[in-house]
């Protein structure tokens, strides 16, 4: 115990030292901030009060937003399927025999590890290489990467479900999958839903960024308006994105409230 603690403080000191050394390696005279950029920054901020609201641009912006939402929803659907199946297997809650359980758990955990070791943008590149540039590519990339994360969290929650109600079900004659349906799953479902909703917000932001690998959506419009230095349009898009995130946040809060009361 004391050995662990002392090795931890040694690690802390090493990290602090590395941080201090990294500060000395920055050339402070050159200026860390781009001074020529300041007027541009002011111009950008000033544009916040006059977003572009022409019907033509608004139409384009809403279509882009819609595409991003569609990517996120479809991607999360795939992720939930992958997460539910692999997460359940990885939790080891369903297998009767010890050997089968070991195989399932190890196999499912390894797969989940692989899925989430790779970032969704890298998955997008891989799928573009394999399938070409299409909406399916974005949906699969998001679904596979997020399925790995959801599966891991689902498995952990399922494995940590309170044991007393489960033992009571077993004593009442329930087999493992019945105890899963009537105990393990409902016991942790509010936590699973809560986490999936949080991940849905992340998926919206990830889908907005997908434009950078050539898949359309909000990010593509942002890129275009930024390149043309049309800050009014940029703000329109940002406001739409903020409104979307706020709306999703409100909705997920509502769902959580309903599940816990």
């Amino acid at each position: 115990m004391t050995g662990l603690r002392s090795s931890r403080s040694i690690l802390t000191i090493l990290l602090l030292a590395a941080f201090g050394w990294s500060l000395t390696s920055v050339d402070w005279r050159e200026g860390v901030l781009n001074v020529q950029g300041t007027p541009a920054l002011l111009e950008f901020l000033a544009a916040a009060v006059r977003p572009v609201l022409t019907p033509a641009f608004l139409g384009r912006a809403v279509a882009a937003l819609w595409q991003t939402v569609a990517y996120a929803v479809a991607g999360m659907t795939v992720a939930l399927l992958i997460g539910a199946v692999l997460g359940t297997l990885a939790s080891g809650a369903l297998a009767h025999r010890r050997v089968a359980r070991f195989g399932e758990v190890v196999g499912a955990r390894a797969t989940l590890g692989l899925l989430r070791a790779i970032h969704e943008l890298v998955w997008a590149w891989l799928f573009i290489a394999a399938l070409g540039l299409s909406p399916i590519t974005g949906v699969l990339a998001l679904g596979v990467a997020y399925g790995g994360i959801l599966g891991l969290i689902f498995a952990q929650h399922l494995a940590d479900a309170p044991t007393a109600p489960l033992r009571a079900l077993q004593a009442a004659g329930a087999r493992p999958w019945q105890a899963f349906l009537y105990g393990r799953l409902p016991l942790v479902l509010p936590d699973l839903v809560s986490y999936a909703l949080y991940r849905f917000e992340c998926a919206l932001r990830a889908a907005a960024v997908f434009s950078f690998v050539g898949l359309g959506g909000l990010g593509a419009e942002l890129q275009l308006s930024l390149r043309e230095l049309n800050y009014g349009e940029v703000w329109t898009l940002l406001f739409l994105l903020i409104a979307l995130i706020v709306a999703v946040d409100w909705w997920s809060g509502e769902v959580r409230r309903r599940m816990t009361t």
Partner: protein
Amino acid sequence: MIEAVRLEEVCRRYPNGAGLHPVSLSIGVGETVAIVGPSGAGKSTLLSLIAGVFPPDTGRVFLHGRLLADLAPGRELARLVGIVHQQFDLVPQLSVHSNVLAGRLGEWGLARSLLSLVVPQDAALAKRALERVGLLDRWNERTSRLSGGEQQRVALARLLVQNPRIILADEPVASLDPARAEDLLALLTGIAAGEGKTLIASLHSVALARRFFNRIVALRAGLVQFDRPAAEVADDDLAEIYALEDHVR
């Protein structure tokens, strides 16, 4: 006498030296037995061994003449013996009726179990059980919204639906106020008497044990201190049982 439960030299030892060492006991069909004794005497351990929650280290447990170790877990065991705990052990997120119908899982297959979460199966059975414990009006409610006493009665309704021949109850009234405790014990003993079931319950209150049960088994430090009809238990016997605990207090 037809034997419902028979323990032969049953031992179970925990690392701290506590447990049961050893206990032999024979309980007839239809008897109502109160297990009394101070905390740590081994009451929960004894009931768990009879429920088949874990096996004894040594010794044998028979239920209705059959060796417990030979019974298949699941339906076969669930038909013979069922248990309610002090903490009720319900699933708070499920509706009251789903918790009650969980007592039928031993009899159902996958399709029926799944369907019942949407359209309650064997609903008449569950309704009768809930009516019996006075909670029929809470049929569709989320279980977490019920009070402790109500949840204890839901657990009892689940046991009624399971319908085992031997009913075990581990400190069923420990978390209830005195009036509700008496109601629940009256309900439990009424069910046992009405359907000829065997009832074994651990209790902290000897007064309640004497009032509601026909036999009292006193445990102390993992051994049977005495075992006699409730009517023959004298105040002196009880002083002896709880002497240890009084020292601790």
